[in-house]
């Protein structure tokens, strides 16, 4: 069974190579040209050496004198072949390398391009580590055999030439050659077949090791604070040992292949010696021929390995290619519409109408399973959500932890699409708007701020047109971030580090808030976006937003009473359903769940005061 699949893998591997040749036909031709030149010269050099021995060395030593002209001609021929070989090597190695690098770059562009085009729901289904390795190691794996490919193709041509020249010299010795080449070929096939499953397993283990390392370092703080370094190391060590065993099994096969590949041509040379002596005695060949052919076998040994390199890497290449295809053929990218309304200065109106949402089914790490589950959904988390954020108004979404508020926020700016129902801005269904119109009109500030590894300026402006330094400072001022930015050593030019690690949580939130405000959105969606900001700072930000000169409709996910109090309307969510909507005081009176939530602190304090009073009383009476 293993051999069937590995034969299948080889066939598919050849198709991947065919794809590479189709993508880069000219460079491939150039590289193969260089390689064929090289191979021809390898065969040629054997005959030149044979002639030097037969025509120059033997007569010279036997006669005790040499024809100087002939000697220098021989030497010159050797030099000329070397120079030409350098030309061949240039063509072959530069061609092969350029081909490999261009293919890598081409597919990296394609893969990362898909990342940008595919919807967030697709991203949610794939582990970050997987996507990173798709663009990195999978691209490398897919095109790894390209480096030795022209060499291998040139070697095949060279072998044909060698067999041809052998037949021209002597058919008996040619048969010895054929037997040797057939043996080399068989060893190569055997090797690559046996290697395929081992390589695949090693590659799989590499992925596992990497996944554990990613996760463990991602959660380093938890590991440290819980003192679980030892257990984590054990978990990692178990997987590392499996990888080690897989690699050792690869190495053992390699250890068998290399000496055999080395020895077989030597055995061929010995056979040539014996058979050649018989043919010499029969007068069918000369010493020149014998030496030429023996030499040929010696110089062929090295290039023939290139075939093994290509074949051995094919399984890895196919595995990499399959993973690339999984990304490249993934469908379901968000289709944007064509409507691009004139951008006005007036605030927008957002409406949800009968919206259901179900998360796509959980993580699929299995490539094949992905296609099947693409359209399936997990449990529904939002049910029949209808709500409106009228022009210029502020609507607060309130609900217990895990009730679906963040999902509504993502739907409002079309990070994800609903399963059923419609969401519209100013009466335009979101899917009818162009991507640019959507981004121009609506902005989301997420709960966990994301900062690019770039300057403050770039993080706020994001290269959007019309955002100059004045606009940036204005936005920073509005987000109460101007003071701490001004205190940074290089102001707007300060690099904030990966994910903004040089800033505090509250600073990161304010920076992302400024990013949203800089685009002067007509609809602003704040998803608990000020949770790490101190109450006083938040109050100032909200006041600025309320009384600011940027007229904006706001949807805000909030727990804080003050934030809620600023809202014109409150929508109360529980378990993915709108339970009640109205003003704060209406809901306080009508909806016990809401009242419980927003008055929690007051009630807690009141209770504490009662307890205190009781304790004090107790103290007095005691």
């Amino acid at each position, binding site marked *: 069974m293993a051999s069937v699949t590995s034969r299948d893998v080889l066939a598919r591997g050849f198709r991947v190579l065919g794809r590479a040749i189709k993508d880069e036909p000219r460079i491939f031709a150039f590289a193969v040209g260089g390689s064929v030149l090289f191979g021809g010269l390898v065969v040629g050099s054997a005959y030149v050496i044979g002639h030097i021995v037969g025509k120059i060395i033997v007569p010279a*030593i036997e006669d005790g004198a040499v024809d100087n002209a002939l000697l220098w001609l021989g030497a010159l021929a050797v030099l000329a072949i070397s120079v030409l070989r350098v030309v061949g090597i240039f063509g072959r190695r530069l061609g092969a390398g350029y081909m490999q690098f261009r293919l890598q770059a081409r597919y990296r562009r394609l893969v990362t391009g898909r990342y940008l085009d595919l919807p967030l729901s697709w991203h949610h289904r794939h582990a970050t580590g997987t996507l990173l390795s798709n663009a990195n190691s999978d691209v490398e794996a897919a095109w790894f055999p390209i480096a030795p490919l022209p060499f291998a193709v040139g070697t095949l041509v060279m072998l044909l030439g060698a067999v041809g020249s052998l037949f021209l010299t002597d058919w008996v010795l040619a048969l010895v050659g054929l037997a040797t080449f057939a043996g080399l070929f068989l060893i190569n096939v055997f090797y690559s077949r046996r290697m395929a499953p081992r390589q695949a397993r090693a590659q799989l283990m590499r992925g596992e090791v990497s996944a554990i390392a990613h996760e463990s370092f991602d959660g380093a703080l938890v590991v440290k604070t819980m003192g679980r370094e030892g257990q984590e190391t054990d978990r990692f060590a178990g997987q590392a040992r499996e990888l080690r065993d897989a690699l050792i099994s690869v190495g053992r096969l390699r250890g*068998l292949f290399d000496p055999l590949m080395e020895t077989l041509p030597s055995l061929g040379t010995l056979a040539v010696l014996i058979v050649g002596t018989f043919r010499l005695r029969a007068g069918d060949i000369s010493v020149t021929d014998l030496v030429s052919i023996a030499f040929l076998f010696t110089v062929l040994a090295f290039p023939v390995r290139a075939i093994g390199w290509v074949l051995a890497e094919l399984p890895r290449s196919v595995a990499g290619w399959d993973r690339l295809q999984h990304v490249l053929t993934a469908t379901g990218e968000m289709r944007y519409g064509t409507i691009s309304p004139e951008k006005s200065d007036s605030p927008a109106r957002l409406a949800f109408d009968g919206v259901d949402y179900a998360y796509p089914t959980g993580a699929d790490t299995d490539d094949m399973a992905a296609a099947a589950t693409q359209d399936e959904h997990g449990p529904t988390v939002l049910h029949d959500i209808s709500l409106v954020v009228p022009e210029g108004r502020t609507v607060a979404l309130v609900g217990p932890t895990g009730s679906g508020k963040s999902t509504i926020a993502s739907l409002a700016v079309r990070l994800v699409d609903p399963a059923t129902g419609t969401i519209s801005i100013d009466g335009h269904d979101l899917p009818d708007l162009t991507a640019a119109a959507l981004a121009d009109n609506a902005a989301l500030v997420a709960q966990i701020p994301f900062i690019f590894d770039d300057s403050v300026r770039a993080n706020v402006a994001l290269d959007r047109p019309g955002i100059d330094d004045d606009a940036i400072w204005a936005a920073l001022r509005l987000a109460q971030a101007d003071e701490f930015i001004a205190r940074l050593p290089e102001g707007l030019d300060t690099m904030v580090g990966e994910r903004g690690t040089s800033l505090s949580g509250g600073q990161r939130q304010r920076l992302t808030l400024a990013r949203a405000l800089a685009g002067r959105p007509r609809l602003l969606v704040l998803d608990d976006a000020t949770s790490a900001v101190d109450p006083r700072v938040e109050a100032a930000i909200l006041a600025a937003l309320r009384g600011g000169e940027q007229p904006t409709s706001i949807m805000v996910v909030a727990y804080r009473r003050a934030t809620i109090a600023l809202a014109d309307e409150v929508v109360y969510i529980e378990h993915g359903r709108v339970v009640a909507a109205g003003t704060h005081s209406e809901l306080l009176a009508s909806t016990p769940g809401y009242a419980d939530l927003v008055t929690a602190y007051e009630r807690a304090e009141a209770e504490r005061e009662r307890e205190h009073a009781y304790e004090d009383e107790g103290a007095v009476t005691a």
Partner: protein
Amino acid sequence: MTTTATAPAKAKVVNETAEERPESTWATIRRGLSLSPELRTGLAGTLFFAIISMVGRAAVPVAIQQAIDKGIAGPGGLDVGFVGTVAAITAGVLAVTTLCGYLMMRRLFTVSETALANVRVRTFRHIHDLSMLHQQSERRGSLVSRVTSDIDQITQFLQWGGVILIISAGQLLVTAGVMAFYSWQLTLVVLVAFAPAVFVIRAFQKRLAGAYGLVRQRMGALLAAVSESVVGAPVIRAYGVSERTRTRLNTAIDGHKTSQMRALRTSVIGFSSGEIAAGLATAAVVVVGVQLGIGGTLTIGQLTAYLFLVTLFIQPVQIAAEVLNEAQNAVAGWRRVLDVLDVAPDVADPGEQGVSLPEGPIDVRFEDVSFTYGGPIVLDDVDLDIPAKTRVAVVGETGSGKTTFAKLLTRLMDPTTGTVRLSGVPLDQLRFDSLRSRVVMVPQDGFLFDATVAENVRFARPDLTDADLALAFTELGLTDWVESLPNGLATRVGERGEALSVGERQLVALARAYVADPDLLVLDEATSAVDPATEVRLQRTLDAVTRGRTTVAIAHRLSTAQAADEVIVVDKGRVVQRGPHDKLVQDSGSVYGKLYASWLEQTR
């Protein structure tokens, strides 16, 4: 607590050494070998097999010389029997050397893979042992690559090119030896012909190192760009900046490609000199050899064998050119791994020499503690006591130093000056196993592992029974929430817990700390994303179950402060007030008074 000020400086060193540093390849290899003594296991046997297998390299040319001189052009004319005998003996020799070659490689792979797996695990552990400052100062991806792609590069090189390179080196030595045996004069000629090429290649080696250094640097930039486009996908969508990202990605991709091409050109040009030298050497052997032959110093067979030997002598140079790129990367990868291993953890476990925390409730004492990340002072001369069994809230504005306080308290960092004591024991003398089992901190970012809710809670106590687990959630009043999950406690939380909302992640993180049953619990805004009703409920249950232990809660929701026995107010790195809420709030002009007024404004 005197040597701790250097933390940020050391962290910086890791960054710099991650890329180019003027260390020679040999120095790296020596350093690597000294860190992996396992590599010497069975070395003698491996060398023995290696030496025998190398002999096989010279067998064929010697056979040819013998066959020509004594069997073909010998004094007795053609002697088929002699040639046959020579061939048979040589075949026997080849069988033995091939077997030895296999045995050598087998041993080599087993030993080297085992050693590298150990290095991988040690590096993994070492990275976890480094302080938070170190971990933060490096890109997380680059830490991961220390134990993945860097070591993979070494093993892949060993599998692919390393063995070829070792064999080639052996082949070079053996053929050189046999060549010298046949004719020292010709060997001198060959060495002279190769001398210029050696200088050229050496000169190119430097340029190559630079060129490949650039390739690695560009690869780092490429990975960073890809990572950003993946992790930042929501922001890229929400702001419609796909094109900007695409441009950045393409620039990084093309930059990497260009650098690869440049390195390749340098390598090909450098090694073409070896090819020319080979031609020069062969031609010189022909010319000089014929003269020597006429002079009677060399037979036809010897000269012919010599030509074969020169070819075998040249091959390693060609092979080196094919695998050099890999070798460069492998050595660089090794260097990066060693550089991380060489960083001594500055917040180190005293281990055996350390002491354990005394039994019972823990009290905390800060003695003149100051902390700076290298810039402005974050905590300034803090001096305070937290008696055992009290519940303390630490409040203050963003950037006031609250979180730093929590990190110093749990020894995630060491103070720049001053001492932190738990139950009288200076923190840096406290063994980590004692510290981490008795003191638990719940960070604000409730990181979860890609597993079920139950497995995440068990992270703190693997031996926890199902019943105890369920009980823990019941005690925390979270039964309703667990029941609302699609699969209850068996619900998978996704990568980093992202299948749950931020607030839900905090609930799981809290449960995880709760079952760890610490004597000192430090909460760093651990419920900041949880709704108020749930938070109040949690607060109450935590109060009940942590009675008799010490709790320090960093909070910006003042409800926590109201419930605490005592409030510590931090402002600009200094403790400005402390006392029970009721007392502090009476001074409305104080820092706390203002904070509280604002809090009331927010919540009423």
